Each structure stands twice: as C-alpha cells, then as structure tokens.
C-alpha cells in the first residue's frame, strides 16, 4: 500500500514538472498607478496588467504576475527568480548591457512637478539651487544626475514615486521628476490637486531617457520574438487602443522607432 502511494506521489511530481511552468512576469511590488497596483483583494490591476492579459492571450502563453522589489528586478531576472520584467522599465543602453528588451510598448515623456505657483522651469537653469526628487535607479535619476545635479542644491532619491510625491506635498523637496503619465495620475488625485502643478516636460534625451518602455528578458531568450509579434498583433487589431482608452485620454504608444 505504501509503495502504491509513493508511486502515485512520484508520478504526480514528475507529471507536474513535465508541463511547462507558467511564465513569471515580474512587476515592482511598489504600487505604480495607473500601470500596476494591487487592489484590496490583492489582485494586480492597471494598464500594464490588462495589456499583459492581451499579450498572453495573443501569444497563447501561460503568465503569472510576480511582485518583486523594483531595484531587485534585474537581479531577479538574471538569477532566474522571474522570467520577464514588466514594470514600466525604460529601454536604455545601460540596462541593455545586462538584459535584452522587447520592442517598446509605450513611450511617454518625463515631466517636472512642483508646488503651486513656484514658477520653476523644467530646465537646468530653472531648477538651479533647488532640491529635486527622483525615484532610485530610474532613467529619471540618470537624467537628473546629468542635467540638474551640477546646478541643483541636491538630487534626492526615493524608493517609490509615492514617497517622492508625499515629500513634494510636504515641502521637503522643491520639484519632482518622473514619467508624465504617472505624475498626471498624482496631479489629478486630491492630494496632488491641493499642492502641486506640472511645470512641463523636460527636454528629451533618448540616450538617457531611453526608447520607451519594453519587456525585459534574459540575454538571448527566444521569448523576445514571441512578445514582439504579440505587441504588433494587438496594436494592429485594436486591442491595444481599447485597453488604452480605458485608462488614458490619448494614445501612449509614442512613435515607432
């Protein structure tokens, strides 16, 4: 009897490993609305989550979302904890040294926010002597270090955009820099309306700000072609536009590169 049970357990263990495990898509565990954030019941919701649903349906993939700390996403990918990064990660030359990227799936400019009536400008001269907040290990941090650091009083880094926005509202920083879409969401919230306003987009620098946001993959992963084909397909059949319309007033795909 014992042997039969053992055999059954062994058969189960082997058969389950014979099926392909679902692909693990790593998102930053810190909420980043309106792209990825957990809801009250712990499910992940947002534009990127809906977008991923469409991609996986299109490419007939079995996908699960795996929350991982933002600054640990690339190590988690290279060490095999996750299979793909889907966390509004911009495609940059620096990151491409370590991981591969799919084609971009959205591309939005970077913006400066400041307290109401501050009269700041989104330029190095306009922000001279000010304290500027950015999220750590982002393209925005790299941009701020290159353009603003020489004249600004300080570049302060935050683990999450939320903390950065809180500090801006509390007056601990003079200005914050981040993705325009994510900041728009903050500016239209009650807390954002009360304190802050947009000072406009910064001058683009594709070398630092990247060529839009794409999936991050391990070097040489053949999954890349599948994901690229799926992005093209849902762009073409209108699924992409339908998902975008649910969240945004205008298209966020940007131009083809």
């Amino acid at each position, binding site marked *: 009897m014992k042997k039969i049970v053992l055999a059954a357990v062994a058969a189960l263990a082997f058969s389950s490993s014979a099926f392909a495990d679902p692909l*693990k898509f790593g998102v*930053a*565990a*810190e*909420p980043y*609305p309106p792209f990825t*954030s*957990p*809801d*009250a*019941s*712990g499910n992940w919701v947002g534009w990127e989550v809906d977008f991923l649903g469409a991609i996986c349906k299109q490419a007939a993939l079995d996908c699960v979302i795996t*929350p*991982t*700390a933002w600054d*640990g996403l690339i*190590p*988690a990918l*290279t*060490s*095999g*904890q996750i299979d793909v990064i889907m966390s509004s990660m911009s495609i940059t030359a620096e990151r491409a040294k370590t991981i591969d990227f799919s084609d971009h799936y959205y591309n939005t400019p970077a913006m400066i926010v400041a307290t109401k009536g501050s009269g700041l400008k989104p330029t190095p001269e306009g922000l001279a002597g000010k304290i500027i907040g950015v999220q750590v290990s982002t393209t925005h941090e790299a941009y701020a270090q290159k353009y603003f650091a020489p004249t600004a009083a300080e570049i302060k880094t935050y683990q*999450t955009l*939320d903390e950065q926005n809180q500090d801006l509202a509390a007056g601990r920083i003079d200005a914050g820099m981040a993705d325009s879409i994510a900041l728009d969401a903050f500016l239209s*919230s*009650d*807390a954002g309306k009360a304190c802050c306003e947009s000072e406009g987009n910064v001058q683009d620098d594709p070398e630092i700000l990247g060529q839009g946001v794409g999936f991050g993959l391990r070097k040489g992963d053949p999954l890349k072609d599948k994901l690229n084909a799926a992005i093209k397909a849902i762009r073409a059949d209108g699924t992409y536009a339908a998902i975008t319309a649910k969240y945004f007033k205008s298209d966020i795909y940007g131009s083809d590169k």
Partner: protein
Amino acid sequence: MTCPPPAQIPALELLGFGECGWGATLIWGLGNSIVIALGAYALGFAIGICGAFGKLYGGPIAKDLLGVYTTIVRAVPELVLILILFYAFTGLLNDVLLAWGYDRIQISPIITGIVVLGVVQGAYQTEVLRGGILAVPAGQIEAARAMGMPSGVVARRIILPLMTANALPGLANLWLNATKDTALLAVIGFSELTKATYQASATTKAFFVFYPAAMCLYLLISLTSTFLIGRIEKWARRGQRDVRG
C-alpha cells in the same frame, strides 16, 4: 469590482474584509510573517542545539568551524544576508545548474526567508544555548557520568532539562526578534505584514489607518508570545526555589 475612491471609504471599512477592505491582505501578510518566524526559529533552534554542543564538546575542527559561523553571521546584517542569498546565491546556483545541463530553479521568497533568518537565528541561539549549558552545575554532569550514563543520555536527561530554565529568557528575546526580522523580507518584494501594510497604504493613501493597524498586529504577536513564554518558563522552573525572598 467598483469601489469608491479610498478617501471616501471609512477607516473601519478599509480595514474590513468586504470587497473594498484590505483586512484579508493584512491578515494574509500576518500569516506569512508568523509562518516565516516559526520556521526560522525552529531551524535556528536545531542549528543552535547542534552548535552549542559542538562548540563545547566537539573536536577542534568542529569548534573552529562553528566559531567562524557564529562570528560571520553575527557580524553581517541580516538584510545583507537576505540580499546575498536571494539574488547572488540563486544566480550562482542557476549558472551552475545550466552549465551542467539542468533547468534553472526558482527559490520561493518564503523558503529564502526561513533559511536566511534561520541561519541568523542559529548563530545567536548557539551562543544563548551554550551559555545555558555552561550554567549547568558541573557536579551534576560529573555525577551522571560517574553513574555510567553515555553522553547522549547525559545530554537528554541532565543537561537539557537543567539548561532550559537558564536559556529561556535569551531564547524568548530571540523569538521576539524573529517575529520582527520578518519585516526585512519586504526588501525582496515578499508580501509579509510590513509589505502588505505598505501596499495597502500606498494604494489608498490611508497611511494613518494601516500603520497603526499593523502596529497592533505586531503588538498582538508580542503579547501572545510573552504570555506563552511566561507559562513555559514557569514550567521549566518547576521545583526550583525562588531566591528573591
């Protein structure tokens, strides 16, 4: 699912178990924290018992190795150990597995947590238990040997019962540390109580609702633990005279 904006939901409902409440998320996080703390503590206790006996009665090599283990682990912050095991160690392991033609493996955050915190607990418990053993009167052990007891029986029937009362206050401290060290796992994005609280408050912006709630949950763990430890200590000290007069 249609919830009103979080700002319009009363605090109690945010903490509740309804469709728009985060109660279930917090309790789930609390459960994860407790599972990891229990697992890590049990692993640490197993390491600690072996380590303490090894340090006192082991050969010269075992003593040196254990000395290196307790020194290094107690010198490196837990946070650094967690990052090393979760990212660097699994990366290395997968490189080796791939080189040998196997598939890469994924170590779940919960296992990482138990192993890392367990290894850390093991180092501290080794020292606490070693102290407990040293406080056992040497005459008791000599008497047991004189009766012809083999060393396994001496350990089980003389040393362990006598050292328990000595080691308990230190072990109780380490247990309370273990419950709170679980919060360190938030750095690898693992949804234990601290991370769950952060996610709930960052999404709803109700920081002053969720953090006090989490504080109460941690306090609840501590109070329950203190009560249980008090009972255990009473049991371990049965038959001993209270010398405070």
